[in-house]
């Protein structure tokens, strides 16, 4: 690779990477202060068992989410299916359902006494795996769909002209171009599953996050030590999964080759129906059932629903603004890191990318407390930011930037160096080259990454509860508050609004901007 990142870009990437190590430093400091014993904790069966469970669940979920995400993206973007745009949005939406809500809905839906009593009950490993697969496959689906929308049709056409069949073309020409997007999405699924607490707790599957939570107040030394172990593990995995190989195909905004699915058409459509049915329609049905059931009892005892639904207006606006701002901020912040990681061979650049990715594996509570730790310790002018909107956005970016980073890395790696070199030969400056050549080509990747951040922010809970300006309610905090005390009608209503808002924002900011 001849074209290298400017040293200034690498320096900026390194500085940003250091900021993303703040949670790790906080954990090291806490372990030291509280007297956590890393060796003893690591050797204890009370750590190893949940750790093993976490890894098994993460690997299993990554496998299923990866396969389903790639298949769904392929069918929707390249297959000849009707209602493409509708599928395009609907397939992304399960990502916005908070995992504790998704798990509660699955528990309420299946098994004897549930809404669908004939379906076998799911809990434990299988329940957690089922719920998390349905809620995380969009991490793979969104970036792969974005990549499939920008590959050059010429290669595929050439392959067909040279006599290769559809299957051979898909395997030899299309797959290599989406492989790095798939790996990037799969890493996100893996890290997310490590961080999840809501689904595993309700499904009664004992993971390391459960151990971190159950010890957080009365065995803090163990809790923070486990947090540190998780952070180091995440850093190692993120570093190992670094450097997506440059596929080197020309990016393109031309009309894509669509494949006739032939006799695969029916199974393909069934897959889409199953994913959207289980991941989106089924939870929606449960929310509606709760709403209908609870609304008939309003006025019995006490009810948070009240006579009107205006209590959801402010949280909806807050959620939308916070999510859009976070998505934009995260995209800007990760750009130099992604650029450095792809275009520089310096270790610092690679480590920065790993640092950014690793934070995503930490439970939200740990990230939030790390931000509190640093904000409180900050000198006077900076300390004024404590519990401000700006700091809340910073916490979101810290937690979720991994999602836009991976998408950006993949997009940058796919820009052919030759373009840049040609422009350089013609005397174009670095800035001009970036904005006129690379930016248009990486834009779909950036937008897909921003979409992931947007949906994640919409459902974020722990940092919002601890760090938001006082009185700043979001749809996620409204859902949590209602669920905490058993106001299921309210949980249902707020969840429906959350899904509707996500659909609107996904269309407005992601799908609408894609080439057809």
């Amino acid at each position, binding site marked *: 690779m001849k074209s290298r990142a400017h040293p200034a870009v690498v320096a900026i990437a390194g500085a940003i990477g250091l900021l993303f190590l703040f949670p790790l430093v906080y954990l090291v400091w806490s372990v030291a202060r509280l007297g956590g014993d890393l060796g003893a904790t690591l050797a204890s069966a*009370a750590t190893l*068992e949940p750790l093993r469970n976490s890894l098994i669940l993460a690997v299993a979920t990554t496998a299923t989410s990866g396969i389903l995400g790639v298949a769904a993206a392929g069918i929707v973007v390249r297959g000849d299916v009707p209602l493409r745009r509708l599928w395009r949005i609907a397939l992304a939406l399960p990502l916005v359902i908070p995992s504790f809500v998704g798990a*509660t809905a699955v*528990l*309420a839906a299946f*098994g*004897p*006494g*549930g809404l669908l009593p004939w379906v076998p*009950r799911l809990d*434990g490993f299988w329940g957690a795996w089922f719920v998390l697969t349905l809620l995380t496959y969009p991490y793979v689906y969104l970036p792969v769909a974005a990549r499939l929308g920008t590959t050059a049709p010429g290669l595929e056409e050439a392959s067909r002209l040279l006599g290769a069949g559809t299957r051979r073309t898909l395997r030899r020409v299309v797959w290599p171009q989406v492989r790095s997007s798939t790996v990037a999405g799969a890493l996100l699924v893996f890290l997310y599953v490590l961080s999840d607490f809501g689904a595993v*707790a*309700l499904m*009664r599957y*004992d993971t390391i996050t459960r151990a971190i939570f*159950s*010890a*957080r*107040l*009365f*065995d803090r030394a163990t809790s923070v030590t486990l947090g540190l172990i998780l952070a180091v593990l995440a850093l190692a995995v993120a570093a190992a999964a670094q450097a997506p190989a440059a596929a080197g195909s020309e990016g393109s905004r031309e009309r894509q080759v669509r494949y006739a699915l032939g006799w695969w058409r029916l199974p393909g459509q069934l897959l889409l129906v199953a994913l959207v049915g289980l991941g989106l329609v089924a939870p929606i049905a449960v929310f509606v059932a709760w709403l209908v*059931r*609870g609304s008939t*009892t309003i006025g*019995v*005892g*006490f*009810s*948070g629903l009240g006579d009107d639904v205006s209590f959801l207006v402010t949280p909806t606006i807050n959620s939308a*603004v916070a999510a859009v*701002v976070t998505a934009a901020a995260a995209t800007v912040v990760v750009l130099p890191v992604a650029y450095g990681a792809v275009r520089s061979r310096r270790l610092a650049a690679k480590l920065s990318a790993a640092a950014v990715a690793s934070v995503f594996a930490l439970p939200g*509570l740990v990230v939030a*407390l790390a931000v*509190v*730790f640093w904000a*409180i310790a900050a000198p006077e002018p900076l*300390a*004024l930011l*404590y*519990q*401000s*909107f*700006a700091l809340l956005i910073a916490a979101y970016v810290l937690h979720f930037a991994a999602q836009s980073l991976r998408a950006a890395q993949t997009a940058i790696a796919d820009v052919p160096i030759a373009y840049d070199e040609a422009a350089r030969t013609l005397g174009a400056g670095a800035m001009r080259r970036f904005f006129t050549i690379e930016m248009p080509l990486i834009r779909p990747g950036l937008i897909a990454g921003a979409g992931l951040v947007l949906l994640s922010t919409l459902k974020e809970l*722990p940092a919002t*509860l*601890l760090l938001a*300006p*006082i*009185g*700043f309610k979001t749809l996620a*905090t409204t859902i949590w*508050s*209602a*669920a*905490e*005390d*058993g*106001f*299921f*009608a309210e949980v249902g209503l707020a969840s429906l609004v959350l899904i509707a808002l996500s659909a609107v924002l996904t269309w407005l900011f992601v799908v609408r901007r894609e080439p057809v």
Partner: protein
Amino acid sequence: MTIRLLLLVLTFATATLPGCATDADTITVYSGRTENLIQPLIDRFVDETGIEVEVRYGDSADLALLIDQEGDRSPADVVISQSPGAVGFLAGNGRLARLSDDVLDQVAPEFRNTDGLWVGMSGRIRVLVYNTEMVTAAELPDSVFDLTDPAYRGEVAVAPTNGSFQDFVTAMRQIHGDDVAAEWLASMADNDAQPYANNSAIVQAVGRGEVPMGLVNHYYNLRALAEDPSLSSANHFFADGDVGSLLIATAIGVLATSDDPEAANRFAEYMLGETAQTFFTNETFEYPLAADVTPAPSVPDLADVSLTTYDFDDLGGGLERTKQLIDDSGLESP
């Protein structure tokens, strides 16, 4: 579009900047009690006293961790916890100030901290929630100790990582000693007690018949029935004097770092007054702990329940040991 968005963000950013100097007539409350269960009362307090109240809602344990992390710079004046555990943690870390005598005198000594660092605000009773289609009341035991009987093998749901279960185990340690508590936990684990995430998850599971019975606070089933009257679940109270029918208090305390302890104490006093105590029992099915308010008809009479006596003060602290015992029992892993 972009400009409008930018303006919106700017409005947001400025509107939400924290006040630099704390207004003397504004207090900040960190509440583990959710908005539905307390905000109407706070609104009335503001109307009656003119003191502005800002509330941060969250999980009791998480807010306790937040206050401890904030240290001397915590913006909070008052903390409200769903169980004594979280305020016990704060008291143990020197984060709470002694409440004024006007506040302390409102509540009977057994429902407040001996050093006057926090008081009980309302009470929830530990019960055995059961599915009326799977078991009859006659089959249920008089004592929580009987749940280790093979007859209940695999039939009892517990929430070992939940604050109220931990408080209950602490009370058992106080009354019967660590050995008895440890043995009960181990026997429950041997008897295949089913671990769940929290009270709400247990009541849901019992309601749909996933497990016949579970140890929870009385509140959750009443709430579930309000939402879905067709639910076949009911609360069973253990016999007189059994540790199984422990009263768990939600608690309130004032921070040592509060810059307006006077207003903070006034707030605490209001929460123990007749208006608040009536709200807690009529609107949220809880037991009043002050102002001689009688419990609402929907909650069983305290006289019938006949609570066990225990040293309430120790209930808050000493939870590290309780956590250890629960860990050692193997009850936690499903």
